[in-house]
């Protein structure tokens, strides 16, 4: 009796489904990102454009607060409620792959050879298990922000080209009161801000140390060259005293101190341009990061958010989802993204565009993209803490930089080992 009843309802539902499918041949796919106003507005426009180009497809755009993003994914995807196309931080890709939420990018739509030819090199960090799992629309890199008024007062004629010049300029700009307390930092030191990236991908490399092995399984920065780079950085705090950790307390204190005219220079990402433009009263400028020597090999740190296909995008939704992903990472979208969101394009072609390279704000960041690398983080919070602690061991506990860096490398190695060991587990 009960069975017949269930069967009846199932038939009715099925018939209704066929009925609507017949009258409305549309496929609905869902796109998720976290809430960032300019991105949300732009994606709404893009979806309208995509839907006109693809009349059979309807894209539902959903966004969530950043803090709840992962939890939202975790509760929705296993229930079959999640997105077909999803936006995520590049550092989360291994987590998402291991959890079975992402499918590899279809190689016919995104041939790996083409990816490596078209994109800036940093996106290699998204190659995992020999496959590409997601691609960015836009990327970020680091550059040197300087206070032009403080430069003038300290007779610094141009932004530093080498780290030696950088140190000299910082020393000249540092001001202290009669009791030796710093009132203006030459350089806004921030190990937990961008400086741990600066150490990993810029200073270590420029001093001749590879921070990690090519397969991302071993920490290799505690070499002689690495120790020298680390010592140079900690000497800025302990010897030349051109800045102090937590000089301005609070989140983004280094950036706030720069905006308040209390730091001559900071190293910050392209994402900081907007805040600094709004908040800085003094004249300021952006220059490429200095190098170890004039004409020496440049290097930079890059990071990005990627778009990927979830395992939900199967059957009739797979092709439209792939098409939407292709549209999201296309050259046209990348150009719009730069104007609307202020993030740098991910295509080499656009990076080489002389008009973009000449832009006073974006130029220094864009010129860094060909040699910017994204660290393959397996546990970014813990890996950042390792470097922050290493700096503090030297600054607060007077540990020799060599010992502090070796201990840091051992701790970070443990984090990597832990990650790779867990992956082998079925």
């Amino acid at each position, binding site marked *: 009796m009960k069975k017949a009843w269930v069967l009846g309802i199932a038939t009715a539902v099925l018939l209704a489904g066929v009925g609507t499918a017949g009258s409305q041949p549309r496929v609905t796919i869902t796109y998720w990102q976290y809430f960032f106003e300019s991105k949300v507005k732009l994606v709404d426009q893009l979806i309208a454009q995509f839907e006109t180009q693809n009349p059979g497809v309807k894209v539902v755009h959903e966004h969530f607060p950043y803090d709840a993003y992962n939890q939202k994914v975790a509760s929705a995807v296993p229930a079959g409620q999640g997105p077909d196309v999803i936006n995520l931080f590049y550092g989360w890709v291994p*987590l998402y792959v*291991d959890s*079975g939420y992402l499918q590899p990018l279809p190689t016919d739509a995104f041939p790996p050879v083409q990816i490596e030819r078209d994109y800036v090199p940093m996106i290699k960090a998204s190659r995992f298990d020999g496959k590409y799992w997601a691609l960015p629309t836009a990327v970020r890199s680091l550059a040197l922000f300087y206070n032009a008024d403080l430069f003038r007062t300290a007779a610094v004629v141009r932004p530093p080209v080498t780290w030696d010049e950088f140190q000299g300029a910082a020393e000249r700009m540092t001001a202290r009161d009669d009791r030796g307390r710093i009132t203006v930092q030459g350089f806004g030191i921030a190990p937990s801000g961008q400086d741990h990236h600066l150490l990993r991908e810029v200073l270590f490399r420029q001093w001749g140390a590879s921070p990690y092995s090519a397969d991302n399984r071993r920490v290799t920065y505690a070499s002689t060259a690495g120790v020298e780079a680390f010592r140079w950085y900690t000497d800025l705090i302990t010897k030349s005293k051109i800045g102090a*950790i*937590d000089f301005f*307390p609070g*989140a983004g204190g280094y950036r706030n101190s720069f905006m308040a005219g209390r730091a001559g220079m900071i190293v910050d990402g392209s994402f900081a341009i907007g805040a600094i433009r709004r908040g800085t009263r003094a004249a300021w400028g952006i220059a490429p990061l200095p190098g170890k020597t004039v004409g020496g090999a440049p290097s930079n740190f890059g990071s990005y958010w990627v778009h990927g296909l979830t395992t939900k995008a199967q059957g009739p939704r797979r092709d439209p989802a792939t098409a939407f992903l292709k549209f999201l990472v296309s050259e046209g979208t990348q150009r719009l993204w730069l104007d609307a969101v202020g993030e740098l394009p991910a295509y080499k072609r656009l990076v080489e565009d002389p008009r973009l390279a000449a832009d006073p704000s974006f130029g220094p960041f864009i010129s860094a993209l060909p040699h910017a690398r994204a660290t393959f983080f397996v546990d970014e*919070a813990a890996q950042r803490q390792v470097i922050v602690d290493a700096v503090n061991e030297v600054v607060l506990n007077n540990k020799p930089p060599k010992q502090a860096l070796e201990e840091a490398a051992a701790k970070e190695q443990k984090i990597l080992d832990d990650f790779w060991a867990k992956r082998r587990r079925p």
Partner: protein
Amino acid sequence: MAAAARPAGRPRLELRIGQQRTLWAYLFLLVPLLFFALIRILPALSSLYISLHEWNVISPVRPFVGLDNFRTLAADPKFAKAALNTVRYVAVGIPAQIAIGLALALMLQRINRFRGLFRALYFMPFITPIVAASWVWQWMYSQHLGPLNHLLLSVGLPAQPFLRSPGQALYAVVAMIVWQYVGFQTVIFLAGLESIPRVYYEAAEVDGAKGWRLFRNITLPLLNPTMVFSVVYSTIVYLQLFTQVLNMTFQDQGGPLASTLTLVLYVYHLGFQRFRMGEAAAATAVLFAVILVITLLQMRVLSKPVDY
């Protein structure tokens, strides 16, 4: 009587008014109980369940790992550091808070004019938003720009690193929390003091007792229930310390070098920054056990009935 007014003949459970009222009370108490079970007990049980599994927050698979998470914790020096720090917070913060609170209450009890004003002033930090207060204190402690060092220097003392020193940071945080809770403590003690009958003091004074002896033999023993409440309550507050530490060391949370790290902050980092929910749940289970044991011990040791 309501029952008697009903038409007779229908067999029904006869309840006296008292019983009916009790039943209704239970019924009304059941609603918050269900709510409590749903939002407190159920998550607590599920966190115990998670602590025996490996879970990266987003994975649908949560393999059972037995006590592995607890072993990982035991091997993590940061967990040991966080536990030790938490004990330090309790050991330094609570005596300081109770001593200052009691001293203020005793002094307030002696004055009649402006007592309300003083009480309000002392109580104000307690109702100030914790995050805002933490940020203000962080600025006051600032090594190079803060007013505290300005003050020290102006009286000829050397400037201090405060929150930037692994040796001082924890005590700098404790000072802020004591400042925050001392008004609350004072008000509790004032109420306790008011409840001690004056006759005991008068009788003792007739016998020639004065000052310290009055305090030692009358005030302190009769304040015991208040004291037990204060100690138990503030132990729980200090064991669950999070917001103040997070906000006062925002750039390097729990730092420098984990010197201000608390168990709850450690749990937060594991669960919500590093996506290691299993270990985070295990640490929570440990914290829960510690709070339970300490609270039971305190109740047993501290609460002695006092009769005169």
